[in-house]
């Protein structure tokens, strides 16, 4: 079962159009809810005025003053209000102020435009440098949402003695997830006051995050809050933390109106107000000896965290750990900061900080190779981590890691050296076209950073049903990545049963345990491993109680389950995360095993640039990765191809344009994601190296493909165009023109 590619469990419903996404659910008497937002980046809310021509008495209106529990969204730091109250500070331009609901969806839209906010505006901080300069203090005393230092050896004495010291600065822009289904949620509150029973159905990655947020918002105990995950039209991290906010809004409107309330964002609102990938700035300083061995690395890694901490501390953490990248270095200082700005808080997005710091390092290695007069492939090869080496956090590589072999496979599949030689000639020809090929080598830590998995202590289970089949009990959600399918494969595989005998339970907090959030490339490896244990536990329990004898067949197993359920009433077995024995982490010093293991990749991108129009076309793409055992090769390839498509978009086209902290290209026509005509065929190669911590040897896969494309593309551009200032993504045609003019104008 592990290594096979059965069709996805919910695939048939998806092609029939019968899957129920949140907006497809119609509850009788439901109202439509909308959110009135601040529109100014910073100020004090003085008053709310309700304009004429709207029958306000027919509306349900919720302000901060209506909140029954705590007006703070439960997160890493509980600093973000659900709604800003009168007299309170507005800290970004899309901040929710007021909620409206009405049965007539047209009227509620009209009413949205009739509310006027009176705000005393304050000077705002809109970018990283202004925040660092403390032009205004907008968060704490120093505008820092989080600061992390990672230290290894002592770079101090190295700088003066090293043969080469090379510095560089790299920037990455915000990126929009652009899941096809905008955020959508339905809230229903039955009963009043302490008796209230709160239910939400929604498009959300992390049911128990939303569960915690609603408990805190309403001041209710666990059992009075229920969260159900509907079919989800994509997420990519964009529905990790944000649904805690809009679920709160829908539930508040329902609490006040006594009716179910649907809050479905249109695309413009979703783009403007929901999370993005954190913009970043990374300054690197590296020292090499005369032979190109890396002696010291200093990284100053900064994320723009927006107005509230939300997930920035943990995004920063992953970015900081990955700043050391795949290279052996005895002396390292990483200084990472997430700074506050008066912009909507960025959040989780596939890669979670790692794409930013890895982009910097993989561009920097290319710059260093040029300065050292070495081939960039050779420079990487001389410095790759190997078994026994230690990473920046002191983590020892215990696997038989062969990054040289991984890179060689990518070189071979992409015909990298042949193409470099050919392009060196063809790029001398007249005409506007220039071709280049470039690569990147990178890794992605599996699961939560540091002690995150220990804190989560996730639980998942397997249930036997009356018909003898099995059901997976986990709060992990399906967002298209294939969790339903992979979990069933893992359970079926652990028990030697056919795939069709296992299905997944509806993700409903009343029914499934907290297997943790569906994030961090952790579902297959972390939750899958727990499920493997739970499945074996269920079998042992059947054997011990005399329902089952080994060896068994699918039929005898089914019969045993049937009998056990009939006799016992229910048959469930749960497993829980256990920290692997040789893993240690210190949250204070940032020393130890940041992750139980890593997935590794080497990507090669081939581009052609038209110097008449500065358009870049990706002509070929090779993706070689080592992700442990591949549970479902077709789904896994789909993850890699989709991740690379997003990575190409981030690298070349996808730009969030802002004015006064607000996104102003918040339409699909103006935020440019790739169409089918913009992408090449992608060659996906898996090198399998089973890892003991994952189910059947599997490691994480979902985020890795986001890390490699951007630096590979810009390295390819450098190959095509020579040494330009290729220090930023997205490298849009406009930016590329500026870079080319810098060279031609001297």
């Amino acid at each position: 079962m592990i290594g096979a590619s059965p069709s996805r469990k919910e695939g048939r419903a998806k092609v029939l159009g019968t899957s129920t996404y949140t907006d497809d659910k119609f509850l009788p008497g439901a109202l439509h809810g909308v959110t009135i937002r601040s529109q100014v980046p910073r100020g004090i809310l003085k008053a709310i005025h309700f304009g004429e021509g709207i029958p306000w008495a027919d509306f349900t209106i919720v302000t901060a003053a209506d909140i029954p529990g705590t007006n703070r969204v439960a997160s890493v730091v509980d600093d973000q209000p659900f709604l800003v109250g009168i007299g309170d500070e507005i800290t970004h331009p899309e901040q929710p102020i007021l909620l409206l609901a009405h049965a007539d969806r047209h009227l509620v839209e009209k009413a949205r435009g009739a509310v006027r906010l009176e705000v005393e505006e304050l000077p705002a901080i809109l970018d990283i440098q202004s925040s660092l300069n403390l032009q205004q203090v907008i968060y704490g005393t120093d505008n820092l949402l989080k600061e992390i230092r990672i230290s290894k050896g002592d770079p101090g004495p190295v700088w003066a003695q090293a043969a080469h010291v090379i510095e560089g600065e790299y920037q990455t822009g915000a990126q929009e997830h652009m899941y096809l289904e905008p955020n959508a949620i339905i809230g229903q509150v039955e009963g009043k006051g302490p008796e209230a029973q709160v239910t939400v159905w929604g498009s959300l990655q992390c049911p128990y995050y939303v569960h915690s947020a609603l408990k805190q918002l309403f001041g209710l105990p666990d059992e009075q809050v229920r969260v159900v995950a509907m079919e989800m039209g994509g997420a990519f991290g964009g529905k990790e933390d944000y649904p805690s906010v809009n679920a709160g809004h829908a539930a508040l409107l329902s609490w006040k109106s006594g009716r179910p309330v649907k809050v479905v964002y249109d695309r413009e609102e979703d783009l403007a107000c929901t999370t993005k990938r954190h913009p970043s700035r990374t300054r690197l300083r590296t020292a090499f000896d005369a032979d190109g061995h890396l002696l010291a690395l200093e990284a100053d890694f900064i994320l723009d965290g927006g107005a509230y901490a939300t997930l920035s501390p943990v995004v920063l953490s992953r970015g900081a750990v990955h700043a050391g990248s795949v290279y052996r270095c005895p002396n390292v200082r990483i200084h990472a900061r997430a700074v506050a700005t008066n912009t909507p808080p960025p959040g989780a997005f596939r890669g979670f900080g790692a794409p930013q710091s890895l982009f910097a390092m993989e561009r920097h290695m290319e710059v260093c190779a040029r300065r050292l007069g070495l081939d960039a492939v050779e420079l990487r090869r001389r410095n790759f981590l190997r078994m026994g080496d230690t990473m920046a956090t002191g983590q020892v590589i215990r696997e038989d890691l062969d990054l040289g072999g991984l890179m060689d496979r990518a070189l071979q599949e992409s015909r990298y050296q042949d193409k470099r030689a050919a392009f060196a000639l063809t790029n001398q020809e007249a005409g506007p076209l220039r071709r280049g090929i470039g690569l990147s080598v990178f890794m992605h830590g599996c699961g939560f950073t540091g002690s995150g998995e220990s804190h989560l202590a996730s639980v998942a289970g397997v249930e036997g049903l009356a018909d003898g089949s099995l059901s997976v009990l986990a709060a992990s959600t399906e967002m298209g990545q294939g969790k339903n399918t992979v979990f069933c494969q893992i359970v079926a595989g652990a028990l030697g049963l056919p795939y069709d005998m296992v299905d997944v339970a509806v993700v409903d907090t009343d029914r499934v345990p907290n297997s943790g959030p569906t994030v961090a490339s952790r579902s297959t490896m972390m939750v899958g491993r727990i499920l493997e244990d739970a499945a074996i536990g269920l079998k042992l329990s059947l054997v011990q109680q005399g329902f089952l004898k080994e060896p068994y067949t699918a039929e005898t197993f089914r019969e045993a389950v049937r009998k056990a359920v009939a006799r016992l009433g229910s048959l469930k077995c749960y497993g829980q995360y256990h920290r692997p024995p040789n893993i240690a982490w210190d949250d204070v010093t940032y020393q130890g095993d940041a992750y139980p293991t890593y997935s590794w990749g080497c990507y090669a991108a081939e581009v052609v640039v038209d110097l008449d129009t500065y358009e870049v076309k990706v002509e070929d793409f090779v993706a070689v990765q080592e992700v442990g055992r591949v549970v479902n090769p077709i789904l896994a390839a789909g993850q890699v191809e989709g991740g690379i498509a997003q990575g190409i978009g981030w690298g070349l086209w996808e730009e969030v344009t802002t004015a006064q902290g607000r996104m102003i290209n918040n339409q699909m026509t103006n935020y440019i994601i790739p169409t089918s005509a913009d992408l090449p065929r992608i060659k996906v190669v898996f090198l399998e190296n089973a890892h003991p911590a994952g189910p059947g040897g599997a490691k994480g896969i979902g985020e890795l493909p986001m890390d490699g494309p951007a630096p590979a593309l810009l390295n390819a551009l450098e190959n095509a165009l020579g040494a330009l200032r290729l220090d930023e993504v997205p490298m849009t045609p406009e930016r590329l023109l500026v870079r080319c003019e810098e060279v031609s104008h001297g």
Partner: protein
Amino acid sequence: MRGYLPDCDIRVPADLADALALLAAEPGVWTPFAGGTDLMVVYNAGRLKATHFLDLSRLAELRGIREEATHLVFGALTTYTEIRDCRAVHQHFPNLVKSARATGALAIQNRGTLGGNIVNASPAADTPPSLLAYGAELELVSPRGLRRVAYDCFHLGYKRLDLAADELVASLRMPKPTGRSFHYFRKVGTRQAQAISKVCLAAHARIEAGVVAELRIGLGSVAPVPQRARHAEAAIIGKPLSALPIAAAQAALLDDISPIDDIRASAHFRLVVTQNVLGHMLRELANG
């Protein structure tokens, strides 16, 4: 969906005369539309001021592509898909086929119309540069009768047209090129498909005895209106293909265009790229 539906009204006229009568009776009240591919986008976003709509889509009088001895005549309701599918258009006006193919994607091309594209008056529209390059002429109808306007005089300013409140664009006529012809179309968009133009250039030239006898260049997205590049044309017309003054034409182009910064591209980018694309076009022209 932010448009306020209850405020909206829509009329479906029985025929063209009916439509014209309504426009004349209540001037400025009814907004004519056909495929809805521009109008509905603005309506959905809640940014449409108009609330009263006149649905032209079923008016048979405005449909179809007709071939005359010297011209092709396009009904205003001709869709991009009809343009793509018409053999005579491929034969005589290949740029227009490319324009149609470059507009939105299939679902837009099936609904969007040539008349709508012109009257919507977006400077970034993709058929106007080709229409300018081919010397199109518009036929406008009203209860007062029929009036012809050269297309390159139709756009008076940003979203301002030589079109009275009681007039509709009925059709568009283009003379079939004769003799040795050169056609060029290039769209530089935000991506490879379903993109808005950052720069669009269409050109048509007639060559006589190795000399550029006629040349029209139409530009999109570099001025408040779809724009003829008359100065650049003048630099080339009358010159032999063997010695086209490309640099002079590129310099002259500065007098033709007035690009701006917007969320899709910078003015500087548009300027440089328009000059480059012009250069590319002229080199192709020179190379025959």
